[in-house]
């Protein structure tokens, strides 16, 4: 492997150490090295948002970050926030509102949507659209996705979580 480096990072709470080539993106590393194929690869140049993951608590493009740059970082993927139950309300709302068809964009969309839920604000529909503007969905036309996110955020506010 050319110029390979040793990295250690936390992925969904599990410490992992691997030797990687610098040219490998974080999302390829997660999928190919760790088998976490929930984060999808769409455009590979930062346009579609299908590879959205969380690094040190902030959402980032998995295709615009090298795996070596994640050395020492805390990475969370859709598998992590699904298993922990963090995304449960959003997943339920997406299901109920028909906010997905083929599902390709859904992991990235959920990561972006959960980021907005965690902000503890009450966004307008326009602000929800702005927040997911970097996540492309070619099936739904976004209306149902905005409905689902809006419902979850309103419920959080009603139940005093927000």
């Amino acid at each position, binding site marked *: 492997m050319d110029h390979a480096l040793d990295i250690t990072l936390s992925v969904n709470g599990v410490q992992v150490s691997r030797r990687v080539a610098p040219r490998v993106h974080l999302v390829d590393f997660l999928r190919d090295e760790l088998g976490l194929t929930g984060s999808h690869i769409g455009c590979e140049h930062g346009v579609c948002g299908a590879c959205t993951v969380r690094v040190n608590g902030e959402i980032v493009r998995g295709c*615009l970050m090298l795996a070596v740059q994640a050395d020492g970082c805390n990475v969370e993927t859709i598998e992590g926030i699904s298993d922990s139950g963090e995304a449960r309300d959003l997943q339920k709302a997406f299901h109920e509102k028909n906010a997905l068809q083929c599902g390709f964009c859904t992991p990235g969309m959920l990561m972006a949507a959960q980021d907005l839920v965690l902000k503890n604000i009450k966004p307008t529909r326009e602000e929800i659209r702005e927040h997911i503007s970097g996540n492309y969905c070619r099936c739904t036309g976004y209306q149902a996705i905005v409905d689902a996110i809006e419902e979850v955020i309103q419920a959080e506010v009603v139940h005093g979580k927000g």
Partner: protein
Amino acid sequence: MKAPSFAYAKPRTLAEALELLARHGEGARILAGGQSLIPSLNMRLSSPEILIDITGLPGLNEIRSSGKSVKIGALVTHSQIEKSAEIKKHVPLLAQAVPHIAHAAIRNRGTLGGSLALADPAAEYPACAVALQATIVISNTKGERRVKAENFFQGLFETDLKQGEILTAAEFPSGGKSAFLELTRRHGDYAIIGLAAHESRCVFFNAGPRPVLVSMRKSLDETKAAAMKELDPPADLYNSSATKKHLAGVLLERAWTTLSTSH
């Protein structure tokens, strides 16, 4: 869509970074947030021998206000600028510009220094820096040098940065009235045309190879005439040069109204 092979180094001090840069010469590229560099690697538009990741350098991710000006380190991200109360108060033009930059996930990693050093003609910060008469701070092995933003941006992706130099910060004068306007087809797209205006300085972006400065005249009509004379924006896939020029005039009218009514 996979990047070519390259080496990677993450220096811990500025001196170490400058030394690496000197040793590898043209084969080296500086990596900060990587939100423009990594796509260009993925598309194989660029094939450096080594990436020098400067995100481990101390002190470059700070926002420091001194009353007269605000010094923003090269590694400060768009999100940091967006959240900074100090920038909102002292350099509102930057705070107004940030929401127009790409999308949340990109703003979390993209940096001020990266955007300035890249000098993309469609980018927001270079125009803001010229409008605000910012000073660009550059480090090299001899020390530090400072360049006025107006002289820093020299052409299409071309700046005053010399081989072996690193952009470490930018200083923005505090205060004054400003207006930021940008037209796009969809949220987060590159601008069709944009305008960063501060006091009497109107700077258009995506209107030519580098930010285009038009100074405000006594009346809107005179200013518009001057802008029409100065601007020759290149056509893109969707908009002719004439359309862009017309839209530049529309933005100028809006900025004029904002600046003459705001306090």
